[in-house]
């Protein structure tokens, strides 16, 4: 059975759909899809690509890896790096997509899971829009199929009355489907993926038919591995995935760079004035976060307890942005430790009892002793007291 391509969407859950037929880049989209934004790079890669391609892949696995990691083609076209991180991770991800196992990208917030998933889909299938956004309210229809009820009532069950999900369309077309925030989806809805991933088929019992996936179909899911209150994957579903954990930035310099860049972007969109003294304070926030997260000081000499929070890069960004807003609107226009202390405290102390001890120990044994950190120590003592 083939799936109708262009059927109006009667709001079947959180489904984004733009079929490839009408996927012309909107002239002034706020954020164009990856396959449009980097169309010239994809075209150049496809032209230079002489390695074998799996069925229905736009590029060979090697070229997909190059697309993500960046490089220079023989013709001189420069491919910008989309993902800055270990090469190994991208290689495992691309190879997984070439097997018949699905890919699960795990990581704490701010590790570019969605970004990597979008670019992988764009490079492999030329289409990153077959997307199911996982929420607590994602219904089964968003993963399998829904019905156009007007038609269903008028004509009875028929192919024309069926509204396919992005996953179903990907199976039919041999493309890459994406599921965002898989662990936010209720467990029973998650498990509808099991048949799809193991049997590569989606039965439609109402019609007595099924949709069989054609070669080239695969699925990329992303999930946040340290959030509380999520729906853990069942082991049956977990077995269908190869798991790749996207790491936090490897070095403090990388992380300072990422935080500074994002803070700059956010500050501009929030119309915050850019303030002096920023980078030094960002470096300190990042150091505090990294040290507590890794459970060891930056010089590797002292062990520390880790608090229960994730202390991700994303949180460091929000601490610094909050501090900037405080300094701009209520302070003297310079980012000072006192603007950041409350934010740091809030990010570190999630569990009032255990984390407070962790934080106090860190303050007394590390921050107090460190040269040039007296002002931060004092500011933190004031808000902690």
């Amino acid at each position, binding site marked *: 059975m083939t799936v109708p391509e262009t059927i109006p969407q009667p709001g079947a859950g959180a489904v984004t759909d733009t079929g490839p037929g009408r996927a012309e880049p909107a002239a002034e989209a706020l954020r164009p899809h990856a396959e449009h934004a980097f169309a010239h790079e994809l075209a150049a890669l496809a032209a230079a690509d002489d390695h074998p391609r799996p069925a229905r892949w736009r590029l060979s696995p090697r070229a997909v890896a190059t697309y993500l990691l960046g490089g220079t083609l023989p013709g001189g076209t420069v491919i910008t790096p989309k993902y800055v991180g270990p090469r190994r991770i991208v290689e*495992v991800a691309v*190879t*997984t997509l070439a097997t018949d*196992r699905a890919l699960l990208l795990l990581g704490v917030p701010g590790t570019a899971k969605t970004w990597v998933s979008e670019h992988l889909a764009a490079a492999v299938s030329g289409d990153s829009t077959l997307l199911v956004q996982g929420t607590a309210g994602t219904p089964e229809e968003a993963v399998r199929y829904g019905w156009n009820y007007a038609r269903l009532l008028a004509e009875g069950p028929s192919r024309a009355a069926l509204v396919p999900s992005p996953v179903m369309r990907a199976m039919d077309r041999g493309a890459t489907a994406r599921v965002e925030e898989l662990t936010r989806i209720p467990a029973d809805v998650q498990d509808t993926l099991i048949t799809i991933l193991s049997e590569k088929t989606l039965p439609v019992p109402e019609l007595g038919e099924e949709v069989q996936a054609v070669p080239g179909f695969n699925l990329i899911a992303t999930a946040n591995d340290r959030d509380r209150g999520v729906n853990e994957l069942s082991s049956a579903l977990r077995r269908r995935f*190869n*798991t790749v954990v996207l790491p936090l930035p490897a070095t403090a310099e990388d992380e300072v760079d990422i935080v500074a860049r994002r803070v700059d972007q956010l500050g501009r969109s929030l119309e915050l004035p850019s303030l002096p003294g920023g980078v030094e304070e960002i470096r300190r926030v990042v150091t505090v976060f990294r040290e507590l997260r890794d459970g060891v000081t930056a010089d590797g000499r*002292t062990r520390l307890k880790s608090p229960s929070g994730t202390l991700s890069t994303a949180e460091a960004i929000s601490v610094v942005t909050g501090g900037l807003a405080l300094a701009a609107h209520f302070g003297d226009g310079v980012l000072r430790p006192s603007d950041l202390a409350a934010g740091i405290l809030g990010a570190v102390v999630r569990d009032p009892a255990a984390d407070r001890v962790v934080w106090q120990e860190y303050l007394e*044994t590390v921050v107090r002793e460190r040269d040039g950190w007296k002002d931060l120590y*004092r500011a933190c*003592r004031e808000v902690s007291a």
Partner: protein
Amino acid sequence: MTALATAPAPADHRGRRPGPLLLGVRHHGPGSARGVLAALEATRPDAVLIEGPAEADGLVALAADPGLRPPVALLAHAVDDPGRAAFWPFAAFSPEWAALRWAVDRGVPVRFVDLPAAHTLAAADPSWGEAGDEDEFDGGARIDPLAELARAAGHEDPERWWEDVVELRGAAAPPGSHAPPDPPDARDPLAVFDPLAVFDALADAMAALRERHGDGGHPRDAVREAHMRLRLREARKEFGDAVAVVCGAWHVPALARRTTVTADRALLRGLPRVKTELTWVPWTHRRLARRSGYGAGIESPGWYAHLHSAPDRPVERWMTEVAGLLRGAGHPVSPAHVIEAVRLAEGLAALRGRPRPGLDETTDAVRAVLCDGSDVPLALVRDRLVVGDVLGEVPAAAPAVPLQRDLDRLQRSLRLKPCAEERELDLDLRGETDAARSRLLHRLRLLGVDWGEPAAGRAGTGTFRESWRLRWQPELHVRVAEAGVWGTTVEAAATARAASHARAADSLGEITALAERCLLGGLGDALPAVLGALADRAALDTDVAHLADALPALARSLRYGDVRGTDTGALADVAAGLAERICVGLPPACAHLDPDAAARMRARLETVHTAIGLLGPRTPDPTPEADPLPGPVGLPDRWAGVLRRLAGGERVAGEVRGRAARLLVDEGWNGGEETARLMGLALSPGAPAADAAAWTEGFVGGTGGGLLLVHDERLLSLLDDWLARVPAEAFTDVLPLLRRTFGGYEPGVRRALGELVARGPGAAAPGSAAPVPGFADALDGARADAVLPLLHLVLGQEAPA
């Protein structure tokens, strides 16, 4: 390539060609081992020469003993100084070992051709792990031949390049089979059918490298190679040209070079030498994996051993082993997982352009498929399989290990004869010999050689006495032999063992005990490792009770313990860090305790208080003016702050609160006014009677509490008022506790208290308006003078007229 005596000549079908067969290998490379075996099978030489200390010829016969199981190491040590030693490790997958076994099994003579250990050890700096010279990166001037070759081939990672071109090539072919597993690749010069071709190609490459780099920053190589050439000449004189040499590929061009005997002899003349002995010692894979010290710098001995032993399909077999390990550790791993992992590894190898999956690919696949992306189970795989637990064995016939010799020497010099019957030994640690004996016995106990057991000392002996029960059992010889892997002298071995214990210890108490044992054994060198582990463990321990239990021992060692000139600074830092953490963590830990836990916490509070007193005031901050921090900084001040918080804490158990208040009084940190306030709070009508009684136990329980009450009638009257107020039904509940509190006082104190109470609060000083009950307005001169005669008598002075 004119310098090559064995310029690649057309070989006949058996591979025999003129001149000796020079097999350049990479030490501990399984591909090299397989290549060496194939080459030996193909040429069947009459003698095999191996790079290794020349004195080891006498130990070759032991290699035939089935009791000698790799990994083992040749150990050479100076007879007079067992601490000066060098190791040549051999694993099952080492080409040298393969050649040795091949020769021994066929009765082919074996010679070790490297410079004798007598010279190596006599050099000022015996280089440990000599056999791994090709893997050393320690000197800036030294070049790494593999890195050079890899760079020439356009690869960044020399390890990976070598693995691709040599180690992984033919991994699927059983040893001895000449069928090439891979179709020959036109781009790869080493992919050939001839078992000798790979050695020829390698020799050519090394010759080119050495033409450019000379000795490449290994100046001692010239001497070693001269010795190898001399030994090679001897062997050729004896066996003709049909000899094979197995040595590091780096040395091949030097061995092939034509030099004169005189020139080589001249190089060897006048080398210093010491009397040495050699033996086989058991080795472990973990030790092979270490980069420094005794290690050979092989990152993945377990993986190499697997490549060496797997008859076919190495990746599939490896994944099955990994799956078995993970299942044993409770991870659900199905055969389907294994299939997917193998497919992913092969896909990755294809993507990365490698001939077959190497360790990187298999590890990535294991992580993504079998471990759900987590590094935690992967660490288990790395530890148990990639490195591995394999322990070698050495037959009993092997010469004694140097540790035994060192022990013999110490037993002689300390006049401690090992004898089988039990005997008592009393040591006076003030004497040098006895102190050394005590150290020896403590060190041996650390090594698991329980020759002496500490016995309970005789009554009345001070801390400078120690009693031991000595008994030498025959199996202790075996223990000594086992302990030989830790080092060559008792001191070095005990140090290494203690450091390893410290790394593996689970609890804080274990490490503090270990630290004390190190101090007893005089193992100053082990202390940094032990203290480092202690600091780490203390930082991660969330139970303040553990920290509090650990601190007193540390403070004691620091204050009284004879640290024998070791770095007490490190000890002090660790103790101070521990005290800081206790200061932070103690107040929350004292809240909401039941009576039993409160009693234990009170005891801890006391020991920590004593310990912090012993630590004393820390040195003042050198820049006090730059530090206008809120609150106190010195440790005693911080501790006083903690005690104040405890004494005034709402949710702190009564007994702990009372004891904190008492400690503040004892130290003079709280005046009478504040103490009376605290007591009034604790004993006020709103407080539950049981809690107030517990407070009383904490405050005035134990020694000195009664005297406090006798001398401060204000406190006594507060207590008296409270007691009178306790309702009848609650009184029976608190009575046992109060009885315990007051029953503990000495009879005299009890009587004085009773008299004071009987007299009544108002009767203390009738008619006077004394601000403090029990004390008059001013000093009574006559009564004070009455004590003077006795005082003079005590001090031995004449009373002034």
